[in-house]
């Protein structure tokens, strides 16, 4: 409507009507000198906003134990029913998290996930957060878009030993949540070494 009115006023404008056939290009020419909003996505990758809701991550304590306790509150909160969790008992032989319980099975179905972040709000241990990563959330198969626990676990940082291993000696579950554990201690490394040492002959035989 507004365009039509504009055209009407132009047609009554006299000499300007000579430019009428190319007047529309004015916008085009003007836009050529403005900042480009289009992103050349695959060639040039632009960082997302800092709080962008991307792929989930299952965080670890500073010594490498997992923060997830398998409580399923994320699954409960999920409006798209995209999360499936099964808890299990930590044992002395196989400890994945401080305390009694850990998430044995953790799946997020990214065909269903709407990346709303309600699961993050529900998580009582800050085990589940969202990264800015979004490129992995595509794929040719449905099964490939169901992310398992190993796909979601946070990368190992310095001072971490991958679970399973015991808690830092002399600490309780509380100490982990109060940030008193800052990195893995030699006792934990020894425990892991002792276990992998046992397995080495078997692995060699397997090879």
């Amino acid at each position, binding site marked *: 409507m507004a365009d039509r009115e504009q055209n009407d006023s132009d047609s009554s404008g006299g000499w300007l009507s000579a430019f009428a056939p190319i007047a529309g290009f004015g916008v085009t020419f003007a836009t050529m000198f403005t900042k480009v909003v289009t992103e050349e996505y695959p060639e040039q990758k632009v960082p997302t906003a800092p709080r962008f809701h991307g792929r989930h991550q299952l965080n670890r304590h500073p010594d490498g134990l997992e923060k997830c*306790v*398998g*409580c*399923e*509150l994320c*699954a*409960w909160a999920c409006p798209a029913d995209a999360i499936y969790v*099964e*808890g*299990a*008992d930590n*044992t*002395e032989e196989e400890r994945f998290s401080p*305390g*009694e*319980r850990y998430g044995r099975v953790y799946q997020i179905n990214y065909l269903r996930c709407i990346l709303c972040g309600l699961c993050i709000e529900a998580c*009582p*241990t800050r085990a589940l957060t969202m990264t800015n990563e979004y490129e992995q959330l595509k794929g040719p198969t449905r099964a490939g878009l169901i992310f398992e626990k190993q796909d979601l676990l946070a990368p190992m940082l310095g001072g971490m030993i991958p679970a399973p291993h015991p808690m830092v000696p002399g600490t309780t579950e509380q100490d982990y949540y109060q940030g008193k554990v800052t990195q893995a201690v030699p006792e934990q490394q020894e425990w892991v070494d002792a276990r992998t040492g046992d397995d080495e002959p078997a692995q060699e035989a397997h090879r």
Partner: protein
Amino acid sequence: MTVTEPSKTPVDLVTLTIDGIEVSVPKGTLLIRAAEELGIAIPRFCDHPLLAPAGACRQCLVEVAMPDREGNVRPMPKPQASCTMTASPGMVVKTQLTSPVSEKAQRGVMELLLINHPLDCPVCDKGGECPLQNQAMANGQGSSRFTEVKRTFPKPIRISTQVLLDRERCILCQRCTRFSKEIAGDPFIDLQMRGAKQQIGTFSPGVLNFHVDLPDPVVRTSEELEPTPQSLQQGSSEDESRGASHEHATGTYAADNLTTTGQALLDESGQPFASYFSGNTIQICPVGALTGAAYRFRARPFDLVSTKGVCEHCSSGCALRVDHRRGKVTRRLAADDPAVNEEWNCDKGRWAFNWATGADRLTHPLVRDPETGELEPVSWPYALQVAAAGLLKARDAGGVGVLPGGRLTVEDAYAYAKFARVVLRTNDIDFRARAHSAEEEAFLGHAVAGTGLGVTFAELEAAPAVLLAGLEAEEEAASIFLRLRKSVLNKGKKVTSIAPWASRGLIKLSGTLIQTVPGQEAAALGTPEAAAAVSTPGSVILLGPRLTESSGAYQAALALAAATGAKLAWVPRRAGERGAVEAGALPSLLPGGRPVSDAAARVDIAAAWDVDSLPAQPGRDTARIIDDASAGLLPGLLVGGVDPDDLPDPAAARAALETASFVVSLEVRASTVSAYADVVLPVAPPAEKGGTFLNWEGRWREFPQALTSEALSDGEVLDSLASEAGEGLGLRGEKAGSAELAQLGRWEGARTERPEAHTLAPASATVLSTWSMLLDKGRLQDGEPYLAGTAHRAVARVSPATATGLGLAAGVTGSVTVSNDRGEITLPLAITPMPDGVVWLPSNSPGSPVRARLAAGNGDPVVLRLAGDALMGA
């Protein structure tokens, strides 16, 4: 609220006012129940309708005003616990809905309860279905004024292999301890210590420093089960010294040397805690203090889909709630059914459900390859074709025997009965995969089949006296035991048992024992003691599974019932047995109690089934089917859920399966029978089919299919098999069998004759006595190690004189070997007051496979000797 006894007589009503609403309730009603009548929910934790009031948690405080002597309604100075106060005329009660006082009181109690309650709801199994969680949200306040460090305990104590106790979650409501004492009669945990340190605990050294120097618990006799006063005194004195120690002042307790793994602790009697009803304490715990090892961290309540179910184990037919997640049963709970199991069930019914999902579960039909001799998976149409052709060939060559087993739904048993008559044209069908006798068959036809609902649980509870003849209620029908114990405690019921020795169950029923040598039950039923036991009008005689091995017992029971006017009830051990009797899965019975020998009954059924005639010759029973099959006289066998090791002679049963030229097995899991079979047709376990069990009362216990499954029930498989064989059974669909059976109705004509007179077998020098324990090595308890850990230990029992006769000096412990020409069983010895010359063994406990190894039953002669490794004791 559970109403267990609908009262018929008019009752005195009292009228009171609750929240301004006038209500009339029967005299003696608790205020909390009166409020429920009005739909007013007062928060509560310790209150449970089936337990005595305790007033332990104080959550149900309400403001109460009562008329004084002059009739002026005066408020009581402080809020009162509505779960312990009975309604009185003119009372004015104000709940949290109308009274700020009671609202504040409840809020305060909730804050107090939460002071030491850890907020670990995310990892707690109860989270999501927790009364504390729910009521804290509904009636509590959002914040707490308590900022100090919470009291903690090491997590959790393993009370048994199955029950875990997390003391810091406990709010000391005492539901579990009251259940154990009032209902189950196994006091294994109790309140310990005082004040803030008060806790539920086992009688373990870690909690009370409770040390008892006990001999090996295995050899303890029933008299020793009570804790000695000496040991209790020792425990309490240790408690005081320990309570004063500095360690406890820190608020954290010593690690108690208790972990979530390892051996079960011993209960106060020095035995590993082995209550058969411990699962109920987990269910009624209003917080997550008691959790089950099998369900621990498996799922959250909101994951679960709940379906109604009926227990497939014993003949009680307890109502269950089957909770499943993603096509797998995660747990089962006792459902509320006042007419049958009230709100309780036994641990077997609660936890033994993993058997159906074992690795040996059959998923495809199997047919034996004629060349390789191996069972190969094939398609359903092909398997049915082979099975039908083979059965028809065997039928024409000499006949097919049908052994459906005792674990079928009515629908399935009916399909077997109809299949045998219509397709196989025989009466050679017997569901009794256990010891059996012709006398029992006659008794079933005479007094059980087609009699409908007989003695009920309610009548059993109301009966002034009950005679248990050859029935161990706690081991063989646990819900009957709970009902009996309830009325023994509340109404002074007298329980008498005809058995060789007083079992733990009988002692808990304060019962009287008519000590009987196995096999001589008939004589015991004829004694004046037995007559006196049921002389009061309304008495009940329960006939247990052992009577079938005692010649003349059914006849004696009928005579006793006739003489005293007591009611008779037949209590089989398996869930499907009563239904199989009703469905006609017996050689002499057609559906509805119609005798095969009665021409009118045959015509009746033939017309209903649309066949020309039914076989008139009574068929062979289980023993004769097996004998004839091993002798080559019966070429075909159609076998359902039968374990040869339950049969009187397992070796003969294997020989029969081996010799028979064509065996079709309908099984849930690969079994001994399916290993011999030519065609194996997989069928559905109870969770994957709907159906009906008929419990011992004769009550129809319908249950729906819980899990989505493609597995077919026995009835549907037989229907397809019949179609393949050219005959229609018309039993497609879940309820087709029971509908048709109901339509046939009961037989109104002449019933089977009374069992014939039998001569009593002469007693041998040493005879065997045996019955099955509730928890043993049965196939339906496979895959449940936590449950198996709570089974009673297997011991052999003999009398003191017999033990002395073996050369065992007084006070000496040892093991005995029980043998016959088939084999031998060696078990630790427990000296028990019982008749001399009798040795008792559990039928199928670990290390004691009586039928499989000895092929002997009650009253059979055995040889007893001291095992080589007899230990010299104190």
